[in-house]
């Protein structure tokens, strides 16, 4: 579903601030895989996600989504294939627009936006059902301005928006990091449900090792712009936090204590 071939990303190339953020990433994610991505600060997790999303062009390499070569496409032209949820709950929704307007914008992702009405009545009905499934009581607030919703509610709405028209790929970028623990748990539960029910292929970045272990069916650890650990199947099911810390220590060649500080 997602294939990266020797992807490099160099920021500020040729300047004193030059930073090689991705060093020849090769990655092949199959349909229906739910991949969690962990790694310390500056490991290249977000850079990897942004490369896939098309935030900027990669320096070298090719990216394929569902067989389409998207390397040369900017983010808005890849959007029909991708659903995204950002770390900042404010980024995923238009705060001054109504809840139903936001959902309607997402429903038209990848479609031509013409002079038809922005939100139709059938759509409102569908939105109400989908919102009810979230269990946050949002189904009665279709015309509320998104800005009046809490961070957790906004993240849940962004998740719904990202999954509305069956994207080939769902990208979650530490989407619970800015939420309080209880809300984060709720949003994670919603994420897991949506990925299962819609049978989505998903790439989720997290700072939380427990989440990375508990969720999904494949785990990738990044360090200094490369993928250093790639675990799936039964090995992933039996993985413990200590295994993971040990693996990181082995690969990165640093002391275990510093790692736990970095990773937990």
């Amino acid at each position, binding site marked *: 579903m997602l294939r990266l071939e020797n992807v490099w990303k160099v920021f500020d190339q040729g300047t004193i601030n030059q930073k090689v953020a991705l060093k020849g990433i090769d990655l092949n994610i199959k349909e229906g895989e739910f991949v969690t991505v962990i790694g310390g600060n500056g490991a290249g997790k977000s850079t990897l996600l942004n490369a896939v999303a098309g935030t900027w062009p990669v320096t070298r390499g090719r990216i394929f989504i569902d067989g389409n070569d998207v390397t040369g496409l900017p983010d808005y032209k890849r959007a029909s294939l991708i659903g995204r949820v*950002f770390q900042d709950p404010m980024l995923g929704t238009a705060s001054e627009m109504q809840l139903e307007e936001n959902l309607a914008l997402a429903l038209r992702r990848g479609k031509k936006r013409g*002079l038809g009405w922005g939100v139709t009545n059938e759509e409102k009905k569908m939105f109400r059902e989908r919102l009810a499934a979230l269990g946050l009581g949002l189904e009665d607030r279709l015309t509320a301005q998104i800005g009046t919703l809490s961070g957790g509610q906004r993240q849940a709405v962004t998740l719904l928006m990202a999954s509305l028209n069956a994207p080939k790929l769902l990208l979650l970028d530490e989407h619970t990091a800015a939420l309080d623990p209880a809300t984060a748990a709720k949003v994670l539960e919603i994420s897991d449900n949506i990925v299962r029910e819609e049978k989505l292929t998903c790439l989720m970045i997290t700072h939380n090792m427990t989440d990375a272990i508990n969720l999904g069916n494949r785990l990738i650890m990044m360090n200094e712009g490369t993928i250093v650990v790639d675990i799936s199947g039964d090995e992933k099911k039996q993985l413990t936090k200590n295994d993971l810390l040990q693996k990181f220590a082995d690969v990165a060649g640093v002391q275990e204590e510093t790692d736990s500080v970095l990773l937990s």
Partner: protein
Amino acid sequence: MSVIDYFYSLDPAKLLKNLPGGVAQGILWGLMALGVYITFRLLNVSDLTVEGSFATGGAVTVVLITGGGPAWLRAVFGASAGQFPTWAALLMAFFVGVLCGLVTGMLHSYLGIPAILAGILTQLALFSVNLHIMDMSSNIPVSVDKYPLYVSGRYVLRSIPVAAVITAAIIGILYWYFGTEQGSAIRSTGNNPVMSSAQGIDIEKMKMIGFALSNGIVALAGGLVAQYQGFADVNMGRGASVIGLAAVIIGDVASRAIFKGHINFAVKMAFVILGGIVYYAVVILVLWLKLDTNDLKLFTALIVALFLGIPYLQSKKRESFASAAKGGSGNAET
């Protein structure tokens, strides 16, 4: 002259007599402010192109009505020998205004020039363009006695309903347009460009459409104002962006004071027009108080600075280092 003499010299009847003129002008400039509203509030950018495109609209309208303009264009509207239809002149003004906006949009999107600077560049260029449109004269008169003008300062009471109907029609069209899929995409681009890109919206294209539509409306308003005042002048757009802001902000404050909570989009736009009317009522009042007309622009700038600053000062009052130093102003427990 003593203060008492000054107050005796003020004639209430004269104020009443001048008020309808203020209303008519307020509606027409309010229409211009609707264009400003699109960029300032919906796209979230300050577009100074309007200072030029307003005069462009006036110039195009007056030149066409008074028998000028390219022969092919006159032929298109069957006016080769006769009168160029007023509606067609305004349509052309709108069209040329759209082009002005596209120029700013292209400077911004393709050359990466900040929107405010792109607007300043277009506006400066338009000064020369406008002189060319007016065949190198800085002022062209258009008499209501000779041409079928829609509005005129000579027939104020007849002009008010005409201006109101045109404005209402444009509010209706904008209400429809910004409710469509494309209009929603423009609004979301102004509100949250990151989210809009992620939802597959070409935000540069949306900004371009916004600039174009905004300046089209501004130029149309320029065409109407030129008719109302009986001439097109190369300087008629000076201060238009600030007057537009004044109308938008006055409308904002008034609508928030009257309605609590969600305000319908059409009502918001109607309040922009009301903002224009209030602005011109204040201008009439200031003139009636015998203040120097040359000070009007200073006065306008002060009002806009005040209204733009008030929300900031209010938030500062709620939360400032100065009050924190005094032990805080709010109730932390509640």
